[in-house]
């Protein structure tokens, strides 16, 4: 049976969604503007920020990615719900 997640989880998630959204926007932008130094700097800054947020979420709520892009808990907790569409 799945646990209902606390409000804090939703806030963390939105934090990650916001930072990741900037990264998506900058990715598409840089695909057509590969020489924009300022944008590349901003991109790398946000890439670092997303690492911190990912780590914070995963330490409490389990892996966000798998195939080894995240560490596993004991027992294997990748398949634990709720899944994004169930939230």
């Amino acid at each position: 049976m799945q646990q209902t997640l606390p409000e804090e989880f939703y806030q963390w998630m939105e934090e990650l969604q916001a930072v990741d959204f900037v990264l998506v926007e900058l990715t598409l932008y840089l695909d057509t503007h590969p020489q924009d130094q300022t944008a590349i700097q901003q991109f790398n800054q946000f890439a670092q920020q997303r690492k911190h947020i990912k780590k914070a979420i995963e330490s409490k709520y389990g892996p966000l990615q798998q195939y080894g892009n995240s560490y596993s808990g004991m027992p294997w907790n990748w398949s634990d719900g709720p899944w994004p569409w169930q939230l």
Partner: protein
Amino acid sequence: MNSKNTNQKSYVPYHSPYDPCPPIGKKFYSTPPNLYMGFQPYNLPQYSPKEALMKGTLWPAFYDYYENPYEKRR
């Protein structure tokens, strides 16, 4: 982008005396900012990350809020 550009246009379709439904009046269509931008220039002003996520774009120059234009008429 030319700030005079609007993101919505309208036209009035011809109404025949033999058309069965009452005329809708104006028909609306979108002309969003990407139609006017050309190649995006460097260093456009940005939204904060949270606001960007809510708006669906990082740059205010591309933001185009959409609402049902026919609703007010009901």
